[in-house]
């Protein structure tokens, strides 16, 4: 028996890891050079408490979110995923109390523990607002590192990753999936999981199923490590229908981060930041928290939410035999992913009558350090970079990219944004991958570090 997972985002890797507990061959395909480079690499990284998913309107989301939040608690320990359980606060004034109570009641219906309305400044003295819905079970992870950790754990248990491999078609015979067609060839399969993020509608279209996923952009600002004040909780405004609003948080790496806004866009590849968008983010965040000036920003970035028509996740069996959706994973898709993975895997195991493996490994190798410091801002050693490169190879990363090292080590993500160390990391990548230095990429083919060797142009 063979299962193909389309998409190595947080959803796909969670499905794959859960499937690896069964006796079945699992292959994960992703068009990008490394795992987690779609929606999963650019988001807020919050493990939501799950009080704002209306259980009547979005039952799938509400259930998976609560379950996912619980599962992350052990997952971060098992796989050494950087995390913090700070708790979140939805902050408002006197006139917002009815809205806060509404969220509280919704949380109670969803089964979220320990929610309460508090005097905001008792918990967070600098917060701008009188009252807050406090959710102690909310936390944060580093999303790209989480995807990598879960993918590695899956790989350790036999899952095979095919990167830079785009699924171009799916062959269906008498109502059952038969094979997937990729740029690298065809593979016969017994089941396909559509975890293709923003492009899940395209993949559903390959078996003739209708689906609509629209991109909604969210932009962020990250401040220098030494810029503060920094909150010790995750701070939300009172949410709107469209989104949970611009958040202020001290992210796992210790930087103050604000965002995202929410703007509908057309292009599913367009993750550019905009002047207006970043201004909006800064403005909205300053209503919640006293922000450092804009010149303390060390990075801005944007991500796209895969918004499904109707607003709820699209999970499970379809009219096409062997074709399963894990799609429309908008927020809180990161929180929900472990639960979604478990649910999908047990569904597939049931349908394909799979047995559980007798032996299955839970952990993954711990990072190795040593050698001199390469990234001075985040104190990443050369030993750690070499370890990251080895892990890239283990997962089957074909194109050497600085971003692959960044997501495994946090090198280049500090105050100077790699202006000192990018070249040193690239040199190690060039050496290990046996390519000329200028051909090492920043983030995959087409983003090479240089255009050739010096003098290449004049000769």
């Amino acid at each position: 028996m063979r299962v193909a997972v389309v998409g190595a985002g947080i959803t796909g890797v969670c499905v794959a890891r859960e499937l690896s507990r069964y006796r079945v061959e699992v292959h994960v395909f992703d068009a990008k050079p490394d795992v987690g480079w779609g929606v999963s690499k650019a988001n807020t990284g919050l493990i939501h408490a799950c009080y704002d998913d209306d259980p009547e309107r979005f039952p799938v989301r509400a259930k998976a979110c609560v379950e996912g939040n619980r599962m992350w608690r052990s997952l971060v320990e098992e796989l050494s995923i950087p995390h913090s359980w700070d708790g979140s606060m939805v902050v408002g004034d006197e006139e917002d109390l009815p809205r806060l109570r509404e969220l509280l009641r919704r949380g109670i219906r969803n089964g979220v523990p320990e929610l309460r309305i508090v005097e905001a400044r008792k918990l967070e003295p600098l917060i701008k607002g009188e009252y807050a819905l406090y959710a102690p079970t909310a936390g944060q992870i580093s999303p790209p590192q989480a995807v990598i950790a879960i993918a590695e754990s899956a790989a350790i248990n036999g899952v095979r990753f095919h990167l830079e491999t785009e699924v171009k078609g799916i062959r269906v015979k008498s109502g059952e999936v038969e094979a997937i067609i990729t740029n690298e060839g065809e593979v016969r399969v017994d089941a396909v999981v559509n975890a293709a993020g923003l492009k899940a509608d395209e993949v559903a279209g390959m078996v003739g199923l209708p689906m609509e996923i629209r991109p909604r952009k969210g932009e962020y600002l990250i401040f220098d490590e030494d810029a503060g004040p920094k909150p010790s909780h995750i701070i939300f405004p009172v949410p709107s229908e469209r989104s949970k609003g611009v958040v202020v948080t001290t992210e796992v790496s210790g930087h103050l981060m604000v965002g995202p806004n929410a703007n509908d866009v057309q292009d599913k590849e367009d993750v550019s930041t905009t002047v207006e968008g970043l201004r909006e983010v800064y403005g909205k965040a300053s209503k919640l928290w006293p922000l450092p000036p804009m010149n303390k920003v060390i990075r801005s970035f944007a991500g796209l939410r895969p918004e499904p028509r109707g607003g709820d996740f699209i999970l499970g069996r379809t009219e096409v035999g062997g074709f399963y959706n894990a799609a429309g994973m908008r927020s809180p898709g990161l929180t929900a992913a472990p639960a979604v993975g478990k649910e999908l895997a047990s569904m597939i195991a049931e349908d394909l009558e799979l047995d559980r493996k007798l032996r299955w490994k839970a952990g993954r190798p711990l990072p190795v350090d040593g050698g001199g410091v390469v990234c001075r801002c985040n104190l990443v050693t050369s030993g750690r970079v070499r370890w990251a490169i080895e892990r890239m190879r283990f997962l089957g990363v074909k194109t050497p990219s600085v971003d692959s090292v960044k997501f495994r080590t946090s090198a280049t993500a500090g105050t100077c944004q790699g202006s000192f160390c990018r070249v040193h990391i690239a040199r190690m990548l060039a050496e290990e991958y046996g390519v000329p230095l200028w051909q090492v990429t920043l983030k995959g083919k087409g983003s090479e570090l240089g255009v050739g060797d010096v003098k290449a142009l004049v000769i």
Partner: protein
Amino acid sequence: MDVVVIGGGPAGLSAAIRAQELGLKVVVVEEGRLGGILPQCIHTGFGLLTYGEDLTGPELAHRLINSYQGEVLRGHAAGLEYSYHRKRVRVITEGGTVTLEAPTVIYAAGARERHAHEIGIVGDRVAGIYTAGEAQALMDLYGVLPGREVVIVGSGDVGLIMARRLSLEGAKVKAVVEMLPYPGGLARNLMILRDFNIPLLLNHRVVEVRGRGRVERVKVVSGSKEEWIKCDTLLVSAGLVPRVKLLRRAGAIIDERTSGPLVNDRLETSLPGIFAAGNSLVINDLVDYAMEQGRIAAEGAEEFIREGGIPSQDWVKVIPGDNVRSVVPQLISPGREVIAYVRPSKPLNDATLTLPNGRVRLGVIKPSEMLRVRVKAEEGGVAHVEIQG
């Protein structure tokens, strides 16, 4: 050990050499190459004031390295802990972490470059965006050509030198974009623009980058006008920022005007026995000044050790006035003539500098050229430093 010097660039090496001359036992902590920024600056323009010779960066680095016979610890100083008699410097080396202890520290860790995110450039985060120093290292240390069609942000010396370097390599520099109404660089470097026919866009800002894998075009604005320039490379040369993370974390007061530590005329920071020099004290356009600061700091360290501390006094506060962006040192001893570095805030044609001890006719001045002056102030006052146009 008497003094730990953090950073083996021109400021740190000069400090170490002077400290040895004064009989102190020194260790220099350096994580990269001795010589700091010098080995990658293959152009001339170094050391004219110190040696009366126009040297290249590597040549000057050689001289300094050869004159220093003391100990060097290879590694990254990752922690600095202050107590009056003992400073602790935690160094991560190839072989593990080493902790150095000494009564004095000279902090000469240089500067870092401002990058695209910090100056508010938005758009796509793609390949082809470099700081000038990164591009320089790529070309001159590792033989990589960064790009073919280049837009440079900032008309300071570093940007101009890179414009020449890239042009000589056959790349096309399509524009040097400067936010201010006047160019930043030294006159001799501005000649580069003429030599290579490079347009200088004053009063312009690069605000956005677009491209899929690599830069394809950048948006340049001036007032309400905006224009896209096609290019594959954006070089950011928007100034340097002193690297003061260790000092700040140890508790030193940082001057908002220089972004470096607040110091007295011994170049001692607000933490007794910790001195600063070179680009981590204040951004120097001339290496000679960075080296001089290293020597002053070394003399301060020697005095600290000899006297058990810098003598107490009623420090005179230096107040930057009209047309002065910053002055270092910020505190001076009453009745003692000391060297001060003054950064003008705008270009003037016929400027006069007013100090507590008199006036100096300066002629033409520019913010890119730091002024080195001798200042003396009397007890019980403040020292106003201002420039009249």
